[in-house]
């Protein structure tokens, strides 16, 4: 296995990635990277191709061309469950929790194939105290906000090296959306590498270190969060200003 040097190589390197459905590409030759410890936001409006990109990264979709490198290893097209075991955790917009299982059971499964580490479970509960209170509740009976928390918590149980989230604020009231990004902020401060796709640009840029703007399947802009926030095109298109 090639060794990976976090100092010189990004943890996640996406090169010329094209992804499509039924022969028609929706994402065209996008390239971006996420370095160890940083938080990167993939921003764009509905239909820009954010979800498609992320699904291709985590193996739920087969890219039509391009390459994905994780920690120095080529993982293009690798099966989802294998990527999960390698340390790539993905939280989809639909969450995909186990509705008939309790919060606790969902978390325990998050650590699969390892046994759930009680210390890790503790730290997850500290991040999301609401989950601790509801640990015996069936996931299917929880509200949207709670499910979102559980989905992130479950992903964290495997002590991932990279946490990818697709539009974590989907269906959440503004207060809960803020809370979600507060949690991500905390994780980022603790050193977690995060890739998050988001429509709600101000929230994402508040927490991210860098960002890429995706439009119609192409990357139009990239830069650090502050400069993106001040970019006039971004402000016009996504912040409703000017």
């Amino acid at each position: 296995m090639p060794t990976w040097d976090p100092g010189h190589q990004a943890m996640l390197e996406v090169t010329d990635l094209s992804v499509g459905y039924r022969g028609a590409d929706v994402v065209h030759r996008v390239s971006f990277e996420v370095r160890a410890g940083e938080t990167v936001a993939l921003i764009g409006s509905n239909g820009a191709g954010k979800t498609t990109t992320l699904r291709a990264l985590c193996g739920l979709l087969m890219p039509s061309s391009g390459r994905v490198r994780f920690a120095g290893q080529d993982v293009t097209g690798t099966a989802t469950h294998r990527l999960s075991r390698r340390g790539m955790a993905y939280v989809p917009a639909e969450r995909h929790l186990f509705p008939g299982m309790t919060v606790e059971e969902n978390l325990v499964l998050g650590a699969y194939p390892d046994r759930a580490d009680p210390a890790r479970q503790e730290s997850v509960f500290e991040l999301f105290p609401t989950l601790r209170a509801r640990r015996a509740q069936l996931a299917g009976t929880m509200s949207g906000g709670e499910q979102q928390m559980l989905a992130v918590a479950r992903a964290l149980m495997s002590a991932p090296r990279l946490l990818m989230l697709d539009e974590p604020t989907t269906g959440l009231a503004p207060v809960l959306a803020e809370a979600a990004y507060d949690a991500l902020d905390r994780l980022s401060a603790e050193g977690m590498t995060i890739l998050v796709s988001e429509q709600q640009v101000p929230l994402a840029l508040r927490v991210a270190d860098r960002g890429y703007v995706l439009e119609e399947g192409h990357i139009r802009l990239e830069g650090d969060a502050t400069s993106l926030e001040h970019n006039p095109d971004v402000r016009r298109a996504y912040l409703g200003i000017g």
Partner: protein
Amino acid sequence: MLAVFFDGIVGGLQLGVLAVGLSLLYGLGGVLNLAHGALAVSAAIVASLAMDAGWPAVPAAVVGVLVAAAIGLGLDQTIMRPVYRLRGESRVLLSLLLTLGAAFAIDGLLGWRYPFGGLSLRIGGGPVTILGVRMRSGSLLASAIAITAIGALTWLLRRTRTGRAVRSVIQDEVGAQLVGINPGRVRTLIFTLSAALAGLVAITQSMTAPVSVSSGFSLTILALIVTVVGGLGSAPGALLAGLLLGIVNALSSFYIGTYITAIILLAAAALTILVRPAGLLGRAD
């Protein structure tokens, strides 16, 4: 009447064990294995061949069950591969067609090679009286084995990590993949287990009535009926439906007649589909 009722429970327990694998397999991948009965019969034939060769009953039965499991594994690795590559209705359709082909291939070969093949185990020991009803030792042993199998399966599904993995794939396959579970491996495990359970039921059935080489299709139909009534994908549903239909079967056969009984059981499945497709304990989505 109590005697008939008890007979129903004995039969019902075995119906449950027969159907549970089929039900789980549907829950895992949306596929129906029509070769289920053929797998059961192959266990019976192998066991009877072993006994003809002088083996004692227990090892012969074990070998029978193992062979059924092996054939099941073989089917999973061959004809089920292309099935799982498809999605939705195409997957269901292909699974029906390919497993139907396998059922006929296996049944046909067994019927051709052993036209008078079958298994009938005589269990020693006189009848035992329970609650005033005389039960044959064969029935009791069959029930005991079925209950043990149910217990073992419940422990597997509820208390082990593998079992939790199985349940997770049934509840949300994508979610299972996301946490690192390989759904294909889980399906292979359950297919093989399902075949083994089918084989086990053929053995236990032979303790109360002979199982012949031509029983394959009717066993599949029985399993299918129980699975549908219990709820496709629900293991507890299959067990409950098995018990209920076993009792109905016994009472109806005794008081009404074979053909009407068959019609009643078939109608139960049809009505379930028309009125409450989720079955007794299945998830209504």
